[in-house]
């Protein structure tokens, strides 16, 4: 059932199984499987998944609707237990939540009773950082994301794009080595999306962080990532991997779309997803 697409012109490395364990690699997923029990029946969601995320790398994961992308993310974060396989953060298997990993969803999950600034401070507060330092770091982060002057606004008074920027600031202010983003920009309009994608790429690349982005949006996947991993239908496996080489500065999402090979990648991945009208 699973066909590895190796015959395409673009580099396709197939499965990442068997990657050797190097402690420096931020994330290695090794033959992970995960199933749910529904009405006494076992429903496999993740079949056998292996992938890796290198330091400073942006990897996008795309897959057909309902292929268990969110289950994968929650399993990686230790929020869901896996059935088998290994997940290594910086070479180590961790019980519970990995430290130094930022997590962001489509829902901004801002706390309505806190101002933008206090929302951004949440993680620093939990870590017990002194208030004055937490405030100044959070303000700087908001400024970097173009939210200068909105620090004291409550989420209900901010637009969808701004709220998602606050959520991004809340993730980045903790200076995570790895960011796990699950459809973070899916609910934004095209203009806001492009702007926040560009800012994300810039902040992630400048900080030498790694980013694993789960998305439906093939264009988003290609324009942001160094590598796109295409997942199969459930039970999920890696169907194909593309190294995205656009030959340009990778922090401008419009320039990415203008580059010569952009639409070639998009078309290949679209074909891989094997989308049919239901």
């Amino acid at each position: 059932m699973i066909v590895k697409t190796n015959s395409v012109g673009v580099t396709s490395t197939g499965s990442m199984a068997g990657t050797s364990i190097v402690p420096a690699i931020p994330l290695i997923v090794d033959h992970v499987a995960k199933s749910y029990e529904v009405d006494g029946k076992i429903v496999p969601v993740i079949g056998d998944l292996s992938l890796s995320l290198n330091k400073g790398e942006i990897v996008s994961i795309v897959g057909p609707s309902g292929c268990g992308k969110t289950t994968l993310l929650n399993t990686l974060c230790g929020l869901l237990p896996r059935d088998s396989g290994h997940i290594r953060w910086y070479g180590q298997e961790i019980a519970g939540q990995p430290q130094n990993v930022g997590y962001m969803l489509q829902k901004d999950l801002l706390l309505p009773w806190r101002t933008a600034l206090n929302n951004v401070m949440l993680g620093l507060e939990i870590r017990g950082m002194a208030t004055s330092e937490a405030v100044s770091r959070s303000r700087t982060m908001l400024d970097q994301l173009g939210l200068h002057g909105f620090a004291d606004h409550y989420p209900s008074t901010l637009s969808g794009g701004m709220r998602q920027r606050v959520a991004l600031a809340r993730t980045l202010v903790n200076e995570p080595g790895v960011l796990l983003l699950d459809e973070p920009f899916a609910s934004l309009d095209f203009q806001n999306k492009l702007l926040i994608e560009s800012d994300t790429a810039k902040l992630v690349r400048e900080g030498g962080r790694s980013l694993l982005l789960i998305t439906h949006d093939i264009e988003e996947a290609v324009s942001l990532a160094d590598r796109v991993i295409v997942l199969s239908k459930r039970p999920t496996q890696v169907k194909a991997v593309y190294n995205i080489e656009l030959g340009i500065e990778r922090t401008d999402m419009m320039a990415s779309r203008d580059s010569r090979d952009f639409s070639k990648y998009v078309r290949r991945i679209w074909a891989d997803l094997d989308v049919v009208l239901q």
Partner: protein
Amino acid sequence: MTTDMENRINSIIPETEQPLRLATKRRWHKLRAITVVLATQVTLLALLLGFWEHMTASDKQAAFMFGSPSAIFGFLGQMARDGSLWRDTYVTGLETLLGFGIGNLFGTLIGLLLWYSRFVSRVVEPFVIALGSIPIIALAPIIIIWFGTGLISKVAMSTLSVVIVALVTSYKGAIGVDADQINLMRTLGASKFQIFRKLVVPASLTDISRD
């Protein structure tokens, strides 16, 4: 001032005249609808009181059984004059407010703390439901035996009638907190107590105040 502004607006953009007049018309319609409802309610009340007064004025037995509006208002006036109305209102109000405060405080506290342990909340659930479905008035005799007829028994009664409601509301608020929100807190490294204090408590309290 309004006409001044209207004139100015009209002189700049005459087309706004139409929407402005429409808005005024709509406001007028709304006001009229409210007035009609209020007038009908007042008329209905007057009719009921009149009927009651009429029936009890002519019949001594009915007046004994049902009271009469004029006698009630008369007694109210007498109580107001001798000061007992204010004293009694104060005492009843105090009992009610004390009970309301104590009941809400403890109910909310217990409800929120039940979030902490799924096991404990499962164990106590049927007891809470059973307690909640007892009419509090049925406990009145026991409460009077325990606490006498003074202030404490009344406060206990009003506390009991509030505590279960507050408990159930705050517990529902606490377990209704978005699972993704809790996951986010966990990925930020929050302990269970931090999740409770920074997320569950404020979330359910804003929930309660909204209800």
